[in-house]
């Protein structure tokens, strides 16, 4: 028996099923979609961060030869203002629609205001230049704290602050305010022996997937719409397109093409309804692909933030109180990410008394969206710093204070939630036991080491699978989860394990919205967990049906057939899965297994931790990552190579966020670095190997113990690197990114303070 806890397929590393297509260039991504008579669409975007649209004259564009259709925001159907529930959080329909094509106001530089379909991309671009838009420029506000000020330019004339179901009636950019309270924080702070408080800021950052957004739409004469797109969720895309176009979902088919990265940014729709209406207007299919600058200027970055953290501990090192003030930029329209931040801010610690005060604020930037453990990275950067300061004041090691206070089974978070079985302690112990932690910290005057821990709660939601048994004993597995990082294989492996098959015997396929039951987005680290669970249930369904078929062959009752390890048995009768699959024709024909899941218990959160070694060049402020380890609780690693891949990829996104990535706006609100040249994601040369340690604290809520691993890994890196920088050169930035000029400025200020102290 292999060592994989008795599993034969789970824990192995088969070649992914879609691998050959992807290494030969044959896999079809959204932009590769080809249709006869295809037109090319382009979007005109606002050059202003905040402006009233007074008029749009498209007549010259319409007259240009080769132009087949021109649209503006008023061409979108107006279904009134209502709240639409799209399965991934609610949205106001007006906001959803206005983000697709602005009507009355442009709220960020890059906001779409018109669109064109033409016979070539070049003609479409030329047509954009002929559209005349008259703007009344308005003062823009780009910073979360400025936007909260009394008298700040107001983005939405009718926006009032919502406080947990109550409309306060206060007109403001402050869309939502809420609080969590546990116990008596004031009393606990008063009794604490040590109290530390610090302020933090983090920049707006982008998911930075390499594939630009795209959509191809064909509106048929019978009113049926087909949309081919790179999306994290075909059903969610269908629901959003239906809402914006005010049409029933039955009229829409979304075909999810291969997707070149998402990280949360390809849940919302942008081009899909525009391509659809251009197709309707022109009578031809229309393909639209965003330029890279458009991706940065107008698709979902994740919020910049202002955070204040106060924590208190007693002399034994027990953290007794915590207080967080978290203000997130939601971009042009309200968002929901600060709620997630609240669930993560103190999530690694067992703290009896505390409060969390949260603000969701609109600013003149693109509407922010989820980015891998959304909200968690910002707050981990802040909380982990304050925890390290408590440790320093108490004379404790950073790991020691964490192990003394780690959240565990039964811990009640400040937002009230009580943890089921969780792996925080195990992840921290894995730091302690690692070769990296036990090795000596980097030598030299400018080398340093830091550790940190972070959390993501993961989500469940709905998934569907169907499985057709083939006569040769293989199974065609159809699922609705778009595969961004190898989930076809991690889902197929769970199916194979259940039926005693090999991973290669299962042929997984991602289907369109007409061909599989509703499946929610590839997000929330949910696919291997929930769609894997659906595959497990579909396999059990196949197993039950095959037991009946074997019973028919052997002329016994179905209850007398047992299935174990890929073999059906009853008395002396025995048939392998493959043998029985070959005899389905004799017993009633095809067998199709099916399952849907909607897990609302046992989702199982995941903790991740880092050990980071850095070297700082104090003259230039450059930080080099010398060695980096990521540790994460996977519950059960289905395909360890892809679990490691998530951990490494998330870590490196965290490293980019830590050191260089930011939205850099000019004073008038124009994004100045909307390219991969100046929005600096890490290159291979910026990094060492990313060492991984998979911790497995099985999730009791899943048949195979799976915890999603897609997200928690992005939370700890900025904090670990900040701690390592402090260890190296004695300054610890409180603002992300910790870019070279900021490090040099901090070092100079530090020296000046030291000189003053010496002089005084």
């Amino acid at each position: 028996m292999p060592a994989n806890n008795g599993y034969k397929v789970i824990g192995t590393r088969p070649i992914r099923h879609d691998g050959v297509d992807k290494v030969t260039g044959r896999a079809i991504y959204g932009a590769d979609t080809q249709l006869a008579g295809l037109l090319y669409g382009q979007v005109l975007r606002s050059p202003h961060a905040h402006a009233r649209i007074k008029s749009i004259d498209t007549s010259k564009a319409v007259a240009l030869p080769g132009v087949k259709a021109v649209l503006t925001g008023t061409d979108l159907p107006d279904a009134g203002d209502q709240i639409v529930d799209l399965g991934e959080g609610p949205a106001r329909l007006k906001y959803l629609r206005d983000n697709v094509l602005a009507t009355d106001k442009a709220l960020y530089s890059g906001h779409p205001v018109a669109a064109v379909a033409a016979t070539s991309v070049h003609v479409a671009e030329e047509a954009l230049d002929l559209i005349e838009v008259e703007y009344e420029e308005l003062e823009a506000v780009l910073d979360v704290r400025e936007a909260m000020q009394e008298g700040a330019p107001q983005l939405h004339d009718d926006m009032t602050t919502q406080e947990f179901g109550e409309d306060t009636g206060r007109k403001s950019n402050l869309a939502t305010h809420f609080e969590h309270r546990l116990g008596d924080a004031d009393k606990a702070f008063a009794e604490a022996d040590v109290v530390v408080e610090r302020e933090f800021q983090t920049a707006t950052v982008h998911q930075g997937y390499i594939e630009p957004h795209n959509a191809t739409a064909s509106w048929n004469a019978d009113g049926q719409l087909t949309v081919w797109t790179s999306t994290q969720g075909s059903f969610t895309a269908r629901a959003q397109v239906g809402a914006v176009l005010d049409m029933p979902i039955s009229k829409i088919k979304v075909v999810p093409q291969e997707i070149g990265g998402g990280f949360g940014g390809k849940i919302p729709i942008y081009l899909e309804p525009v391509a659809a209406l251009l197709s309707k207007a022109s009578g031809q299919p229309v393909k639209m692909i965003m330029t890279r600058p458009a991706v940065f200027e107008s698709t979902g970055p994740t919020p910049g933030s202002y955070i204040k953290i106060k924590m208190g501990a007693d002399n034994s090192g027990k953290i007794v109180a915590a207080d967080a003030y978290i203000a997130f930029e939601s971009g042009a329209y309200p968002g929901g990410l600060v709620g997630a931040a609240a669930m993560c801010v103190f999530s690694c610690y067992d703290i009896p008394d505390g409060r969390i005060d949260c603000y969701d604020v609109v600013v003149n930037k693109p509407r922010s969206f989820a980015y891998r453990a959304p909200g968690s990275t910002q707050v981990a950067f802040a909380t982990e710093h304050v925890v390290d300061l408590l440790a320093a004041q108490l004379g404790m090691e950073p790991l020691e204070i964490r192990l003394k206070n780690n959240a565990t089974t039964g811990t009640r978070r400040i937002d009230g939630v009580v943890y089921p079985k969780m792996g925080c302690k195990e992840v921290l112990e894995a730091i302690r036991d690692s070769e990296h932690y036990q090795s000596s910290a980097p030598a030299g005057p400018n080398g340093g080491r830091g550790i940190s821990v972070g959390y993501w709660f993961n989500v469940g939601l709905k998934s569907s699978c169907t499985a057709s048994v083939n006569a040769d004993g293989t199974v065609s597995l159809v699922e609705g989860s778009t595969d961004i990082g190898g989930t076809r294989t991690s889902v197929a492996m769970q199916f194979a394990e259940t039926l005693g098959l090999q991973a290669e015997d299962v042929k997984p396929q991602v289907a369109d919205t007409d061909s599989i039951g509703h499946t929610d987005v590839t997000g929330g680290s949910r696919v291997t967990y929930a769609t894997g669970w659906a595959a497990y249930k579909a396999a059990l369904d196949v197993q039950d049906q095959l037991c009946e078929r074997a019973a028919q062959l052997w002329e016994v009752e179905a209850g007398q057939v047992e299935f174990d390890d890929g073999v059906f048995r009853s008395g002396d009768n025995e048939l392998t899965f493959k043998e029985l699959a070959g005899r389905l024709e004799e017993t009633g024909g095809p067998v199709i297994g099916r399952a849907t899941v909607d897990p609302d218990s046992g989702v199982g959160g995941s903790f991740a931790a880092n050990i980071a070694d850095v070297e700082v060049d104090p003259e230039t402020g450059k930080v080099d990552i010398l060695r980096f380890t990521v540790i994460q609780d996977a519950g059960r690693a289905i395909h360890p190579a892809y679990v490691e891949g998530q951990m490494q990829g998330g870590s490196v996104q965290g490293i980019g966020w830590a050191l260089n990535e930011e939205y850099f706006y000019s004073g008038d609100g124009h994004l100045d670095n909307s390219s991969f040249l100046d929005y600096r994601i890490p290159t291979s040369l910026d990094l060492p190997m990313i060492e991984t340690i998979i911790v497995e604290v099985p999730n009791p809520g899943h048949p195979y113990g799976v915890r999603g691993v897609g997200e928690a890994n992005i939370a700890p890196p900025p904090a670990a690197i900040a701690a390592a920088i402090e260890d190296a050169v004695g300054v610890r930035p409180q603002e992300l990114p910790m870019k070279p000029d900021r490090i040099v400025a901090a070092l100079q200020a530090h020296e000046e303070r030291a000189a003053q102290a010496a002089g005084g």
Partner: protein
Amino acid sequence: MGAYAYRAPSSVEEALSTLAAEAAAGNRAQMLAGGTDVMVQMRSIDKGPRTFVDVKHVAEANALHIGDDEVFIGAGIASAVLNENDELKSILPGLIEAADLIGSTQIQGRATIGGNLCNSSPAGDTIPALIACGAVCEIASPGGNREVPTEDFVTGVGTNVLEPTEFLIGLKIPRPKGRSSDAYLRFIPRTEMDIAVCGAGVALTLDDSGVCTAAKVSIGAVAITALVVPDAAAALVGTTVDDDALAAAADASSALAKPITDKRGTVEYRRKVVGVLTKRAGAIARDRALAL
């Protein structure tokens, strides 16, 4: 509205007559070397139609000579070709490392020193290196070839001395003699791919006792064009290029720099770091010369 066109002349005469004909027809002509800047600009800030005149098929611009007194690098020679030339790397290490800094492996396969110079960006990496090693531009002109020192070539952000009917054939660099060497360093936030936040090129000559007898220092990305820093050179000449001399050179570079604050760095930061780079490049050039 005009149209796009592409021409690939095979000689200087043909290229000059192509440029003249386009000018006479009222068309805009643009020389194309590696195209790595031209293509990007055509998609963003400079979309209008023009005739591309590809310098890569012009025989004279495709030459690479390493003579006893002079090195000639044709304007069409890709950086990757230079970097694969061990002799060139040994005699002009600073210039070749500057060329090697232009973009990725992919960019290196197309980008040229000549193109980097003609693009005339304040942050062009080869420009301070070319200035430091005394390179001269050989320009094809309707009236015959003319020569312009690289420090006089760039006139502003994206502008230079070339007339619409002229083009750069290549660069002539005096072959370093004796204990002479050079170095170029730039600072970027990442390790690859970025545009220089600031850069410094240093070329110097040492005598037998290790005393600097000649030096030239040029800095980039800290003003609208690359700057020559005479005070930095003066700080090195007559010394053994020791720490004090290097510190003085660094101060001279920082003092002359007139940077701006933008997405790549602040004024204060650039002023400081251009000094740091001057000091470090000077030490590398000194060590290289001492090793000769």
